[in-house]
């Protein structure tokens, strides 16, 4: 299995396409950091206008705040970049005509498919680490640290500086599971195609469609929203909401809705296990002609 995994990783990182995601995220993050460094205060002032009768003092636009803004935008787009690799894993081989050769090796089809999936997971993990380095550590380096001040639509959350970092670690961990779910969708669709374009476009379309359905907030879609994986992908934000005590004081180290996080993790895990099992089952039954 380890040998298969090494081969799959070699294949992934030999392709120039792999580095598109790393380049794109680097460009996007750098541009946004530059914009926030130059005009960030205006953005912060604009948001604070809605607070009207309150004065907010302190360093609002610090590295933690910048990272949160970046993640809100990036974690919508990074899944699309993960799709580029995940949806190519099997269909790419079929397209090149190497799938039959690969499956004729003295390894079970299950081992080969799982090796491909684990290689996709490692690629996703590396991409997420890259995002974390750029969005969190570079932002901290450029903007410094401070309390995290989050303005949600209905309320404001102020998290103490020393209570933030672990939340980011958890949020990135959660994001990893969410991205693996997307990878699983792409991987599953990849099993049915003879070239990469179809599954890549199909996976992206599913993500966009599900995201739109979730955002529309119409009663007709609300019954299916809890079952869409995109609904649960954004739950990483729950790590940045605190509980309050009877005096309405935020409790350091607490998470407002831990059951929701666990519930979402379970749903995403069901997606992953279901899709990978289905992919293995399809590939084991499939008559490989290319």
């Amino acid at each position: 299995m380890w040998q298969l995994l090494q081969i799959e990783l070699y294949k992934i990182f030999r392709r120039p396409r792999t580095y598109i995601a790393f380049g794109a995220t680097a460009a996007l993050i750098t541009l946004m950091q530059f914009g926030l460094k130059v005009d960030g205060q205006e953005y912060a002032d604009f948001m604070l206008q809605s607070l009207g009768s309150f004065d907010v003092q302190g360093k609002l636009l610090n590295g933690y705040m910048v990272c949160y803004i970046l993640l809100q935008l990036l974690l919508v787009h990074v899944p699309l970049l993960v799709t580029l690799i995940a949806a190519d894993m099997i269909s790419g081989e079929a397209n090149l005509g190497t799938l039959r050769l690969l499956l004729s090796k003295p390894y079970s089809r299950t081992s080969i498919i799982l090796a491909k999936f684990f290689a996709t997971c490692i690629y996703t993990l590396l991409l997420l680490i890259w995002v974390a380095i750029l969005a969190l550590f570079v932002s901290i380096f450029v903007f410094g640290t401070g309390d995290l001040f989050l303005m949600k639509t209905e309320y404001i959350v102020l998290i103490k500086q020393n209570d933030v970092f672990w939340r980011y670690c958890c949020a990135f961990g959660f994001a990893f599971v969410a991205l693996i779910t997307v990878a699983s969708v792409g991987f599953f669709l990849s099993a049915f195609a003879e070239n990469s374009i179809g599954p890549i476009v199909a996976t992206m379309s599913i993500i966009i469609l599900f995201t739109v359905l979730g955002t529309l907030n119409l009663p007709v879609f609300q019954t299916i929203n809890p079952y869409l994986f995109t609904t649960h992908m954004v739950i990483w934000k729950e790590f940045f909401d605190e509980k309050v005590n009877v005096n309405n004081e935020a409790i350091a180290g607490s998470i407002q809705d831990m059951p929701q996080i666990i519930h979402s993790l379970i749903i995403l895990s069901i997606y992953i296990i279901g899709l990978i099992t289905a992919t293995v089952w399809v590939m084991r039954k499939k008559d490989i002609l290319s």
Partner: protein
Amino acid sequence: MREFEKLKMKYILKALFLLFTIHFSLFTFSQDATELVNKVKDKLDKVNDYTATGILRTDVAFIKAPVSKVIVYYKKPDHFRLQKNGGISILPKGGVSVNMRTVISTNNFTALDAGDAVINNVKTKVIKLLPNDENSDVVLSTLYIDEANLLILKAITTTRENGTYEITMHYGKYSEYGLPGKVVFSFDAKNYKLPKGITLDFDEEKPADMERLKNKKGKVEIDYSSYIINKGVDDSVFK
């Protein structure tokens, strides 16, 4: 006829005397009230500046903020700065002057005696302060003054910009300077709502806290643990 004229004159004199008495009494009341406010002011004037450390508690329905340590700087006449060690603080506008010296910082007011009241089992004089300046942001201040100790125990201030807020003060070892050990600032918190496009929160928010968010009363408390009085505060602190 003459008798009638005499009687008429007598009534007029009586009426004039009554009017004079009422006017004099009001003038005396007003003078007493001004005198009392000035006495309190003189006491507060002993403090030119201070640096205080304390604990800040924010109780506003739509704000989830932790209890935090703060440093408060004050310098005459009305410089006030609350600093949270490298952190962010959210305070109601107008509430930053949680110092009575700023409430009665001017001589340009009319003080009226509005009777007595009991605050925390202490008999207090109720004084209404009306600013003479028509452009003043403060419309009316009601002070509850402990006459014996010359301490303001409570103040209700109505402003043009920031509505009405109430400041309750509890005194401890710094009462000789008129500095409170604890200040509770209560106010009406206006509605807060941000469009999802600005917050980038495109997912649905949890309704769990919605009941709590209906409470529109806000409260900010500062528990002072120590004051450093009249040792000088650099102007750069307030910039």
